[in-house]
């Protein structure tokens, strides 16, 4: 009898224990997170971050899936398009995906520890806000700036550029530094029009209200920008497109030429800057030059939008992970253990080399108005630029004379307008 009671008690205890375990298991929410490997955060660093988060949040488990960069785009596009199988949290770095991102404003408002004030304002505006909704958090930052090789300048007896320099100074310095005998070029050329220097001239490819190309593509500001490029191309002080393509590195900038001392000035980014530190190159940083007589200054800068998928079944838990990953904890971790440059000024202030001359110059570039501010608000820019790319090719290949720049741009206005009209129709006006 005793044995029977004991057995019954034991059975009840086992059932209770099992039920508790099952309930506990059900309480744990799994968040699917897709990411990629990069120079800023490699796989192991990201796995360590997930492990740290999972340990601190026993009720949420993040399941990390690492995808190759190209496969990432394809899988995101297809799963978002299908409306199923997309991850709870991921980079939404293609603007076309943003309609499928959850508006996180209510979650941010309820979060006492995180808000727009924690991020660089420019990056918040360009990467977190889209169509007046908060579609994600900006993770990490990057920017282009002109890096100059101090040793090459010293050898040529030329003064270093300063932050208030102009495009005329750029061409003059490039010509002074170019040396045919040693096959050294003075400076590289931009990798496309309507980037920082074009905006510094006040040039835009079409009107702010996205209706008109005439008077913008062929405006005096656009003509001045292209004419500056024409002068640079024809000075012989800059590598040809063929040189840049062959001797450059994966289209991100001619870092190899710069390290080899064959290019005195190059428009590069913070990743290249770290390469130069590793290589022991004696370099300095300045923003891209302004137009002569102008105060306008822009930076070609970027960040990655980390978002929650609209279709997630666990928005609160997804927000917990998102705000950890792209919040101060995550960005601090990725900065200290990887190469991430955080998008949060307070975190960036703790950067180990924050006091160096080059870091300070880089931080100043991060504060500049961004090319992306206009670009992100004008989704037809790519289509119009593609339609009018002949102007870029003709100047770059040296196929037109200096006084033909205006006529060339004038001739492309109808093509650009047609592309703009088509794009607007496609996007529903």
């Amino acid at each position, binding site marked *: 009898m005793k044995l029977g009671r004991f057995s019954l008690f034991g059975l009840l205890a086992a059932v209770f224990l099992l039920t508790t375990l099952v309930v506990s298991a059900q309480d744990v929410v799994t968040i699917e997170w897709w990411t990629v490997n990069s120079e800023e955060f490699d796989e192991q660093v990201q796995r360590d971050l997930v492990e740290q988060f999972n340990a601190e949040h026993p009720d949420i488990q993040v399941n990390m899936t690492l995808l190759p960069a190209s496969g990432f785009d394809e899988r995101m596009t297809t799963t978002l398009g299908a409306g199923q199988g997309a991850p709870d949290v991921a980079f939404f770095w293609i603007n076309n995906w943003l309609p499928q991102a959850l508006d996180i404003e209510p979650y941010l408002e309820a979060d006492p520890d995180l808000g727009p004030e924690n991020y660089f304002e420019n990056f918040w505006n360009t990467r977190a806000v889209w169509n007046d909704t908060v579609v994600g958090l900006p993770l990490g930052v990057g920017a282009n700036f002109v890096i100059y090789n101090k040793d090459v300048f010293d050898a040529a007896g030329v003064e270093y550029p300063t932050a208030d320099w102009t495009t005329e100074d750029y061409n003059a310095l490039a010509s002074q530094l170019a040396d045919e005998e040693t096959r050294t070029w003075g400076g590289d050329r931009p990798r496309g029009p309507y980037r920082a220097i074009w905006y510094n001239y006040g040039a835009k490819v079409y009107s702010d209200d996205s209706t008109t190309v005439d008077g913008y593509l062929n405006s005096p500001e656009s003509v001045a920008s292209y004419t500056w490029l024409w002068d640079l191309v024809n000075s012989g002080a800059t590598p040809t497109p063929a040189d840049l393509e062959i001797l450059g590195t994966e289209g991100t900038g001619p870092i190899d030429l710069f390290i080899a001392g064959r290019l005195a000035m190059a428009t590069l980014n913070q990743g290249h800057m770290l390469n130069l530190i590793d290589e022991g190159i004696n370099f300095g940083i300045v923003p891209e030059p302004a137009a002569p007589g102008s105060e306008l200054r822009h930076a070609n800068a970027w960040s990655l939008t980390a978002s929650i998928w609209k279709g997630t079944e666990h928005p609160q838990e997804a927000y917990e992970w998102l705000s950890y990953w792209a919040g101060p904890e995550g960005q601090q971790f990725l900065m200290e253990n990887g190469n991430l440059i955080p998008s949060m000024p307070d975190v960036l202030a703790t950067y180990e080399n924050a006091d160096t001359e080059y870091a300070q110059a880089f931080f100043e570039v991060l504060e500049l108005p961004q090319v992306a501010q206009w670009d992100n608000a004008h989704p037809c820019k790519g289509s119009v630029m593609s339609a009018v790319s*002949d102007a870029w090719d003709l100047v770059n290949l040296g196929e037109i004379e200096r006084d033909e720049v205006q006529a060339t741009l004038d001739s492309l206005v109808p093509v650009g307008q047609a592309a703009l009209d*088509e794009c607007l129709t496609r996007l529903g006006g």
Partner: protein
Amino acid sequence: MLATWRNMNPLARREAAEGYISLLPWAIGFLVFTVMPVGASIVLGFTRWNIVEPPVWIGLDNYVRMFTADPMFWQALKVTGLFVLISLPLKLVLGLGLALLLNLKLPGMNFFRTVFYIPAVISGVAVSLMWMWLLQPDTGVVNTILYYMGIEGPGWFWDRNWALPSVALMSIWKVGGSAIIYLAGLQNIPAHLYEAAEIDGASRWRRFWRITLPLLTPTLFFQLVIELIDSFKIFTEAFVITQGGPLRSTYFYLLYFYETAFQNFNMGYASALAIVLMVIILSATVFVNYTSKRWVYYEAE
């Protein structure tokens, strides 16, 4: 068909059933991976669709725009057509010429056959990068050699007049793949025909013209169709090297399609572009097939 099935004896029925079951995996694959995507493309060609939002039915608008208001479409079509006209005859003639050389009974010929076939199995991207280096105007191997010969080399991929011929040159380099198929055709020609012609005093040229070429026409026909389709599908070289430039001189049809679909996410218009290309290739293939009755000779005929 049902009557045929009823008239079959049990063994024949079993054999037929086994045959159909064996065909089933291919049939399912064809249905799922070919018929359905083509069908979906036809339908999507009548829509405006950016993938992440539902498609909107717009009737024939995509086709109307393509033929009446899209200069890029005509430019891409022109460049691709030119490429087909330049590269297709060259590939056919050089492939046949190479096969004739590889068919010679010389020691070590298997080595040469292997060497010439290698380009056909190397990744298109790797080949493109290699050609970029070879044809770099200032430091490339080709222009350096030309320089020592006293010739100023052209700008190749970076010159609007030379970019398209440069891509055609690249495609010719892979001619070893088609040479192997010609070689198989050449080796199927009965030797006694050559022996009889030689006894009759036929010259080498006459033997080629009267025996080799006619008996090789089925292979030529096959190669013509395959190379024709392949030429219309030119993409990797432009995507990796020229991005369609300079001045759109290498703006091939599939590059335009790719930009439309995967950079601008204009899937409806891209589907319409794909359908038009399919119709062009299909028409060209049907035309070649129609003319084949006049110039292709099969041994049994």
